[in-house]
Every structure is written in structure tokens, then in C-alpha cells.
């Protein structure tokens, strides 16, 4: 909006200064200004974009300032570890990497089971910087990759907005997306995850595709295919693109918007995109065989039928004959397609939809069928509050934007509407998918803001011009003045417009404040280091995770195998440099269930399981001393559920009392004696955690524990961190049989 209103404002000021006594000079300046208006506008636009670019970057640096330049959370540690491997050993080693440090004893073929886009991107940036003699550490590159790509996304958003609406909408979209919490949550410095580059790739692909549809140019379609390739290489969310784009094409076909431009854009993008995507080992032939990708292929074939029909129609010149032909062709095409799909599915050539795909379409699916997906907090259905938290005013602007889009229906606006509505549905199914919807919400809201502000300012400005200079401005103002004559019947029009403008700016400033607050308070914590406020308002740091991982790294044998719940797998391998049984990849449900079973069994049974897995150390996370609530006891029911899903000996009701999960005296006996309980609360009964409470008072759950006399037979305490958050136990070798 700034780019639109600013130059015209200076222009009107220039017209105001036209007084008679300074006529000559002012005439000259007016003329030179008028010549420069376009350049001024360009300058303003570039400087706004430049500022937005920088803003998007620095808004994401809270975590670096608050804590330090470090990798956050869980998955980023895996990405960091693989990037480190890539930069040290080179691409071929990386591509063929078999990792024996995770999923012991199975191992994991890393090169074939990951999306390499992020790592390759970071490594390329790293190598470029080194080539330019900037000797940065790879960690710094990884930490800053996400903010860098967020900045790039704002540029893409600008061009996308420009493509679907106008420059003003583009600029507003760039500003909105730069600070939108929904996006910042996944792209703060240190959140080195696939999504960091994937959102950029997603938006770029969409933008280039819309551009290709608008222009019918092969070059843009090619660009979009490469954008798609980058997206496929970066994130599994590419499935969204390969389903949304065909859906969009289908909608255009149905609404009679089929054109040669569309044909070129889709065919080029699909064929090339498919060929490129198949180069990624993790995707490979899935792209032509799996159920999720069949829609795109179907639409591709449908397009050929359409083209053929178009040609026949042109050749026949006879509507009646064509109608019959149409009926026959369409029926046979659908029949052939259906048979092909049926045979393919039956013969197993086409794999059915995966559970993850089902769980996206049906929010209740995961809960019933795949506990491992349901157990992750970011896979929960989204609450209204988190929509409000992540979108703030965009939530209200979105419908307004939709209204504007429907008012000016083009191929491009249809696309953004479809993108917005589908992604918003998915955002409702899973919390983490708010991220995918964010660009669409920002773009549509930007349209609303831009269109509203533009209407209001043009109202204000034309009135002034009519009263002051009359019709000196040519076509633009004559159009506006005709509008004025139309609207003249409404009273207080100018005041109303001013009030509305003030309202808009108030809302936008609230949005900016909200975004900054959310970013600084909620989304900038690395979750490895926990910070709390002490009794005197001072900052207390709990660095127990790293303490434990570093202890493992330094003081255990290099071939030690660590058993922990899968959440900590990536961190243990990356920071502790030790072999883990399961990690966050979760590719083998049985293996995870085995660990879940060990954790929920009695010590004797668990010992046999651990012996069979060659486990040397067991690591548990316990928040009873600090009041840290996302610990293993609170996750324990999921271990039981996942373990019980594979091994029916584990039954969830055994751990509950009247359907209630308890750890105090009223807890079920199985709960009080299972391995997880013992490991978390071992010798906890001797500790006074809070003044005025009995010893063994669990601050995370607010109860006194039920079993204070815990004896361990096959395990011994190897290390407990200073705030007890991580406890590590050594598995003793079997005693000699006498």
C-alpha cells in the first residue's frame, strides 16, 4: 500500500506548491518530478522490499539474542548432523550413507530416506561463503538458513501478490508474511528444518505456475517444474502441490476456463516435474505408482482428452455429431482410466494411500489407527486459539480477501482461493500445517488490505483533487471523478473514509505488535535449553539436555547403545554421538513399540528386551524436580499405546485407575513398578523438592509419588543431570550363573 500511496502523495504536494510567484521553478520541478514518478515509485518499492527483506530476517533472530546461535528442537538436529556429514565427506558419501548409529541393530539408509534439499542448500551456501573467503562455521549457516529463506519468501510473496492482484497487494503480502507468526514459528533462527526452505519452494512453485498459466509461456512452466523439483527435494509436503495443482486445473476445466495457456503450463510442469522428482531417491517411482500421485496423472490424461476433443470439435464443425462423439469419448476415457486404476491397485502396482495421507483427509483416522502419528503434539487438530495466535487479524481479513477475489475472478485468483481454502482445511486437521496455509492467508489478506486501502485513499484523493485542481491529471483522475459523481449521494464520505483508514492502520499496527510479541515469547525458545524466572525475577537456565548428551559423548564407550523414547533419538546421535535404538524418523513402528514395551514392563522383562537389543544405557527425561511438564512420565501413555499396538501383552487399562493416569499412591501397581516409573523416580523419594511439601513431591504433576522405595536390580544410575531433567542408567551385564 505504501508503494502505491507514497509517490502520489508527493505528487499532490508538488501540485499544491504551484503558486504564481514561483511559477517558473515550480513548473520545472513539477515537470522533472512527473518524469521521475515512475522511478520514484520503483525506488520506493525497492526500498520497501529491501526493508521487508531485512525485517523478515531480523525478526527471526530473537532466539539467537536470547539464547545463542544453536540448533533447536528435535528434527533440526538430524538435519544438522547430516549437513555436517555432507560438508565433511562430500555429496557421494552422503548420498550412499548407511547410518549404523541409529535404529540399532537395523541401521538406516540415510541417503535413500531423507529429503536432501535442505542439507544441500546449506552446504552450497557454506561452500559459496568459503569460496568467497568467509570462513564461517557450518552451524552458523544452518542456524541462519531458515531466516534467510524466510526473507526470500517475502520476495516471492511480493511477486505472487503482484501476479494475482497488483503491486500494492504484493507489497502488503510481503510485509504480512514477513512477520506472520504462523510462518515464524517454523523459521526462526536455529529451526533448521525442512519447512524452512520448503515454504519458499512451495510458494515459488505456485507463483511460477500461476505465472505460466497467465502467460502460457514454456519458460515459466519450466521454472515452475524446477521449483517443484526443489520442493520435492526439500519436504514431503510436495504432495500438497502435486494434488492442489491438478485440482486447480480440474476446476478450471469444469468452469470452462480451459485454454492453451493452461495446457502448456500444466503439461510442461507435470512431465518435467515428475521426471525431476523421480531423481530424489526417497520419492523415486512412488511418483508414478503411489495413490497420492494418481490424481495428477489422471488430470494429465484428462487434459489430453480435452485437447483431443477440442481438435475434433474444430475438425467436425457439427454440434450434434460432436455431442455423440463427446459422450463416447468421455465414457470410454473414464472407463479405461477406472479399469487401469482398478487393475493397478489390485495388482499392487499402484500402492494405496498411506496412513499419513488418510490422517490428513480425516482428522480422526490417526487417533484410531496410527498412534505414533497421533502421539506427536504438532499432529493434533488445531484449536481455535492457535489460529488466532498464529494469524491474528488475518483471520478476519481472509474472508474479506476471498470476497475481493470472487469479485474479480481470474485464473490467478481462482488459484489463490483454492490454495487458501484447501490449506486452511489441512491447517485445521493438523497444527503444523498452519504453516502451509500461512502464505495463502497472507496473500488473500493482503488483497483485502490493499483493495480496501486503495478504495479509501482514492475516495479521499479524488475529492481533494476535484476541489483543488480540477481535471489536470488526465485519464486517471477523470476515472476517479466519475466515481465521485457516482458516490456523491453518500454523506460524510470523506470522514468515513478517514475513520476506516485509521482503523485499518490501527489493526495493522496491532498485528505488528502481536507478531513481535508472539515471536519473542512463544516461538524463539530452542527447547534444548529451558529458561525460567527465579524467585527474584532473575533468569534461570536449565541446560540439562546438553549436560546429559555431552556426558554421554565424553564418558561412555564409543560403541554404547542408548535406549530412550524416540523423541530424543536425533538429539542423542547429534549431540551425544552415540548409537540409539529408535529416533524421530519413526520408520519402523515395531522397533518403537519394542522400546515402548520395555519401558512399560517390569524390570525383569525389560531387562531381557534390553539385552536382546544390546542396550548399554537407558535415558529418561524427568521433570519432577523442575516442574517441566513434557517429560517421559507425561508421555508414558503413548509408550503404552504404541507398545500395546504391536504387543498385546501391554494393555493400557493396567496403567490406569478408573481411566485416570496417576503416579501417586492411588496409581495402579503395574504403573508403580514398570521400568519407566522406576527409572524416573529412583531415589526421588529422598529428595525434598518444594518447601512445605513431603519428600518425593513431583512438581510436574503436583503429587507425592506413590512408590518411594525403588530398588533397581539390573540397572544402576550412571548419571543424573543437575536439575534431574535427564537421568541415565547403565544396564549391568548379566551376573554369572553359579
Amino acid at each position, binding site marked *: 500500500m505504501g508503494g502505491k500511496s507514497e509517490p502520489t502523495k508527493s505528487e499532490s504536494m508538488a501540485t499544491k506548491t504551484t503558486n504564481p510567484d514561483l511559477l517558473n521553478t515550480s513548473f520545472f520541478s513539477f515537470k522533472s518530478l512527473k518524469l521521475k514518478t515512475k522511478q520514484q515509485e520503483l525506488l520506493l518499492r525497492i526500498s520497501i522490499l529491501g526493508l521487508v527483506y531485512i525485517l523478515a530476517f531480523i525478526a527471526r533472530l530473537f532466539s539467537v539474542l536470547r539464547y545463542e546461535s544453536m540448533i533447536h528442537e528435535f528434527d533440526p538436529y538430524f538435519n544438522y548432523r547430516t549437513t555436517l556429514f555432507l560438508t565433511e565427506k562430500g555429496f557421494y558419501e552422503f548420498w550412499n550413507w548407511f547410518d549404523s548409529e541409529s535404529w540399532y541393530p537395523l541401521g538406516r539408509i540415510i541417503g535413500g530416506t531423507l529429503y536432501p534439499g535442505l542439507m544441500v542448500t546449506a552446504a552450497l551456501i557454506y561452500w559459496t561463503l568459503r569460496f568467497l*573467503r568467509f570462513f564461517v562455521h557450518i552451524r552458523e549457516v544452518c542456524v541462519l538458513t531458515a531466516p534467510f529463506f524466510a526473507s526470500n519468501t517475502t520476495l516471492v510473496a511480493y511477486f505472487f501478490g503482484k501476479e494475482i492482484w497488483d503491486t500494492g497487494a504484493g507489497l502488503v503480502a510481503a510485509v504480512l508474511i514477513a512477520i506472520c507468526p504462523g510462518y515464524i514459528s517454523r523459521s526462526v533462527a536455529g529451526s533448521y528444518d525442512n519447512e524452512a526452505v520448503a515454504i519458499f519452494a512451495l510458494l515459488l512453485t505456485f507463483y511460477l505456475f500461476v505465472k505460466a498459466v497467465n502467460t502460457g509461456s514454456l519458460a515459466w512452466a519450466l521454472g515452475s517444474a524446477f521449483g517443484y523439483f526443489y520442493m520435492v527435494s526439500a519436504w514431503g509436503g510436495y504432495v500438497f502441490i502435486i494434488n492442489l495443482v491438478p485440482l486447480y486445473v480440474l476446476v478450471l476445466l469444469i468452469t470452462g476456463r480451459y485454454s492453451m495457456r493452461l495446457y502448456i503450463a500444466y503439461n510442461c510442469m507435470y512431465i518435467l516435474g515428475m521426471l525431476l522428482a523421480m531423481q530424489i531417491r526417497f520419492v523415486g517411482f512412488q511418483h508414478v505408482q503411489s495413490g497420492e500421485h494418481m490424481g495428477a496423472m489422471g488430470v494429465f490424461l484428462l487434459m489430453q482428452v480435452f485437447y483431443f476433443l477440442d481438435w475434433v470439435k474444430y475438425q467436425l464443425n457439427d454440434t450434434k455429431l460432436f455431442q455423440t462423439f463427446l459422450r463416447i469419448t468421455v465414457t470410454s476415457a473414464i472407463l479405461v482410466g477406472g479399469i487401469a486404476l482398478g487393475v493397478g491397485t489390485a495388482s499392487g502396482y499402484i500402492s494405496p494411500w498411506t496412513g499419513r495421507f488418510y490422517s490428513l483427509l480425516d482428522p480422526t483416522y490417526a487417533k484410531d489407527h496410527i498412534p505414533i502419528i497421533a502421539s506427536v503434539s504438532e499432529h493434533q487438530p488445531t484449536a481455535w486459539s492457535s489460529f488466532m495466535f498464529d494469524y491474528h487479524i488475518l483471520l478476519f481479513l481472509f474472508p474479506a480477501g476471498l470476497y475481493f477475489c470472487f469479485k474479480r475472478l481470474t485464473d490467478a485468483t481462482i488459484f489463490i482461493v483454492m490454495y487458501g481454502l484447501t490449506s486452511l482445511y489441512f491447517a485445521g486437521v493438523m497444527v503444523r500445517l498452519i504453516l502451509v496455509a500461512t502464505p495463502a492467508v497472507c496473500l488473500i489478506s493482503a488483497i483485502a488490505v490493499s483493495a480496501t486501502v486503495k478504495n479509501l485513499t482514492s475516495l479521499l484523493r479524488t475529492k481533494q483533487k476535484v476541489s483543488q485542481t480540477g481535471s489536470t491529471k488526465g485519464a486517471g483522475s477523470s476515472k476517479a471523478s466519475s466515481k465521485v459523481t457516482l458516490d456523491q449521494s453518500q454523506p460524510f464520505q470523506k470522514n468515513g473514509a478517514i475513520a476506516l483508514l485509521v482503523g485499518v492502520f490501527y489493526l495493522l499496527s496491532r498485528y505488528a505488535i502481536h507478531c513481535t510479541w508472539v515471536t519473542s515469547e512463544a516461538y524463539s525458545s530452542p527447547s534444548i535449553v529451558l529458561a525460567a524466572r527465579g524467585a527474584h525475577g532473575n533468569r534461570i537456565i536449565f541446560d540439562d539436555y546438553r549436560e546429559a548428551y555431552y556426558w554421554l*559423548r*565424553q564418558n561412555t564407550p564409543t560403541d554404547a547403545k542408548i535406549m530412550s523414547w524416540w523423541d530424543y533419538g536425533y538429539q542423542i546421535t547429534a549431540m551425544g554421538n552415540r548409537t540409539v535404538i529408535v529416533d524421530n524418523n519413526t520408520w519402523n513402528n515395531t522397533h518403537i513399540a519394542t522400546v515402548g514395551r520395555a519401558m512399560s514392563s517390569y524390570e525383569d522383562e525389560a531387562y531381557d528386551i534390553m539385552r536382546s537389543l544390546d542396550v548399554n544405557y537407558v535415558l529418561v527425561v524427568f521433570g519432577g524436580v523442575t516442574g517441566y511438564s513434557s517429560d517421559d512420565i507425561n508421555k508414558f501413555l503413548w509408550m503404552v499405546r504404541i507398545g500395546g499396538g504391536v504387543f498385546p501383552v501391554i494393555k493400557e487399562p493396567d496403567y490406569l485407575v478408573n481411566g485416570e493416569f496417576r503416579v501417586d499412591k492411588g496409581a495402579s501397581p503395574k504403573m508403580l513398578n514398570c521400568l519407566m516409573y522406576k527409572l524416573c523416580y529412583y531415589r526421588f523419594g*529422598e529428595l525434598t523438592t518444594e518447601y512445605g511439601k513431603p519428600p518425593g513431591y513431583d512438581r510436574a504433576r503436583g503429587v507425592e509419588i506413590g512408590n518411594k522405595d525403588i530398588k533397581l536390580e539390573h540397572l*544402576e544410575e*550412571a548419571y543424573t543431570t543437575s536439575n534431574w531433567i535427564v537421568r541415565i542408567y547403565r544396564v549391568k551385564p548379566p551376573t554369572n550363573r553359579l
Partner: protein
Amino acid sequence: MAARIGIFSVFVAVLLSISAFSSAQDLQIVNAERRIDLSSHIVKAFLTLKVENIGKDPAAEMLLAFPPTQIKNLAMVQALAITGKKKKKTYLPLDVKPTEQPDAPNDTGYYRVTFISPLGPGETVSLEVLYILTHSLEPFPVEITQSESQLVYYHDSAVILSPYHVKQQTTFIKTPSTRVESFTSIEPANRAGKEIKYGPYENRASYSYTPVIIHFENNSPFAVVEELVREIEISHWGSLQITENYRLTHGGARHKGVFSRVDYQSKRSVSGASSFNALLAVLPPRVNSVYYRDEIGNISTSHLRTGFRKSELEFEPRYPLFGGWSATFIIGYRVPLEDYLFEASDGRRYLNFTFGCPLVETIVNKLTIKVVLPEGSKDPSAVLPFTVNQELQVKYSYLDIVGRTVVVLQKDNVVPTHNVPFQVYYTFKPIYMLAEPFMLVSAFFLVFVASLAYVHIDLNIVRK
């Protein structure tokens, strides 16, 4: 070059030893007193000798002998000559060099002390010798649990090993606590409090050796830095950046079995007595931008006290160190250049910095000091009061084209007494300082020129 000097010095030493050996038996030690301090894991021995020339020729030097078990752990030998009496005592440092003897019994090692002026026949001289032994306390039992305290063996001889006849001698051994499990008794020997006294012994022949073993409690922190790499980067823009990479271990009795946090928290006095969790580093004054981190990020437990004479960094490793546990970490800091870089009279510049390890009471098994000179410096040379291995390397840092010359100084078995100044001389033209800013400026200039050109040049084939 260093190697050549080494060969040369060995050659000279051999020559000297042949000449010296002829007069070896012409000296005798009239009175010797030895005080061995075992209170930390660095064993310090003070030797007070009264040497008399009983031969006919003047003697220019004398030999100090060490048993083979000690010679490999000997970190440093210093000798002072005492002149004057009582209050007017003055100490003059003497030249001490390791040497070899052709007929050394049982691999005895030698150090040669050169007197200030040759000792005439019948004259006596008083000497004070300080020698420092590392890794000489052997933990026994080798493994202890958290609740046990650490007991160690110390092996030595009740009489001083010497190539000379010793008329009278006494040895005092100071233990850190009164808890001494056992000690070999060589009459007359007795123990009082923290002190064990051997002697006085009269008229012991040369190369007398009476092994003794002392088994006592020592819970002082056995902080051993297995490897320390200190990188000192000189920037002529005004600062020295120092980065220190530590690999620290607890060199005492190995920790066995359980580590219990409850016991460690609540019964601190009896639990993990030999473990340590705090370290003190003495840094230069006016130090700034101090950081303390390891491979996985910052370590948040440290306090810095800056002062006029020195700064103190008190820090904790991520976890307390028990026997056999190790930790690696990095300490980095910056100091102003003017305190450490000077211009010599011949126009060369020199860095004057402290050798050794900033940590208090630690042994460094392998110390590497890398002095990174600014890009474009030439003819580096290092001046040190003791021999170290030297070599040159090249390092690439930000915006370097030809790379920076790195003077690498390497020494094994370093103790806090090695914290003495050393100098690195080099020549440098100040114009090189402008190379990097010039590169940056021209890069920006090129970017703007390119964008100007892009805006003004029309590359379209078709005229619009």
C-alpha cells in the same frame, strides 16, 4: 632450523659432558635438604644443596641426577645460586640443561647446572633447586566409588640420587592431609601431622638409592589437560583474539559404579570428594568478549572478574568430573593489542605473551600454541626461555588470499611454572592492513556498477 639447533646443542652437550665427567667425582655435597610437596597432583620438590669442590681443578658445573621413573615425568628443573647470608641473601638463576652421561647407571637422567663462576678448589656454593614432577601420584585403589576418597602412592627414594658423595641429608615430605595409610620407614624416619621426615642420613655414597612408598589420601583436583591448543590471532586493527581448545580429564582414581545425584547434592562433603566441578582460569587484564563453549553450544556456568593485574574466569564444566571422566571445551577472549604487541628497535614487531596454560593447578600433557600473524607478515621467529618444537603453518581466515603465517610452538608436560612470557618477532608492512577493506569496498562498488549497468543496458532483441 629447530632440529639443527637441537642437534647442535646435543653435540655441544656431549662435548661438555666428556670434559665435565672427568671432574664429576671432584665435587661433594656437604649438606642437602629436600622438601617434597605432595599436596596437589603436581609434585614440587625443593632441594637445598651445599656443594664443595674437593678436587684440584676448578669445576664449572655440576650434575643433578634423577631416577628413570622420574625423568620422564619431570616437567621443569630450576636452579638458583644463593650468595650472601641471612637477610642479604640474593638469588641468581643458573643455567640448567638436560644432558646425557655415557655411563649412566640404570638409565639415570641428568641435568647439568652451570655455576655463575667456576668453583675453585675447596670452595663451596649454596644452590636451591626446584623440580616439578607430573603424573607421579599413582592412585591406589585404581577405581573408587562415589563415597570413597582417593588414595595415592608416591614412589621416591629416601636419599637423594646424586652422582656425588652426600655427607648429610634430610628429606621432608608434605602430604595434603593427616591421613597417611602407610609409608616405608628407613630409620631414622618419622611422621608428624602432615609431614614425614626421612633422615638425617650421613655419608651416603654416590648413586645411593633407597626406594620408599608413601600411601596417602589426596583429594585435590587431578585436573589434567590432555591436549591444549591455544590460538593467538593478531589483528593489527587493535586486538588479539585468543581461542583455547581444552581436552580435560580427571587424572585420579577411576570412578566406579553408580553416580548418585542425591548423594552428590545432599552429602557434598563425603560424596565425590576427589571430584571437581569448578575450575579457575587466570586471564590477562583488560580481557573482553570472553566466551566459554563446547562442540554443542555455550556452557552457561561461568563468572568473570576483571581486574587491573589479572582477570579471573571461574567456570564449571557441564558435569562434575569424576576419575576418568573427561570434558572438552573452548575458552575464547580478546585483549587489546597495545598491551602485547610492540615494536623492536630494529623495526620488527614482536608479540609478548604468556606461555603455558591459564588454568590454575593443572598439568598439560601436550600444549600447542599457534601464533597467527597478520596476512603479509614475514620472517617470523620465536624466543622462549626453554626448548619447544617449532614449525610454520599457513592458515586461511576471513578474506585471506595468500593466507596467514602461523608460528606453532609445541611442548609436552607443561605445568603452571611454565607460564612465562615468550616473544614472536616478525616484520609487517602496515599497508597490508588496508587490503581487506579495499576488497570489500571494491566488491560493493562492483555490485552497484553492475546494477547501474543492468538498469541502463537494454538486452532485448526486439525493440519495444
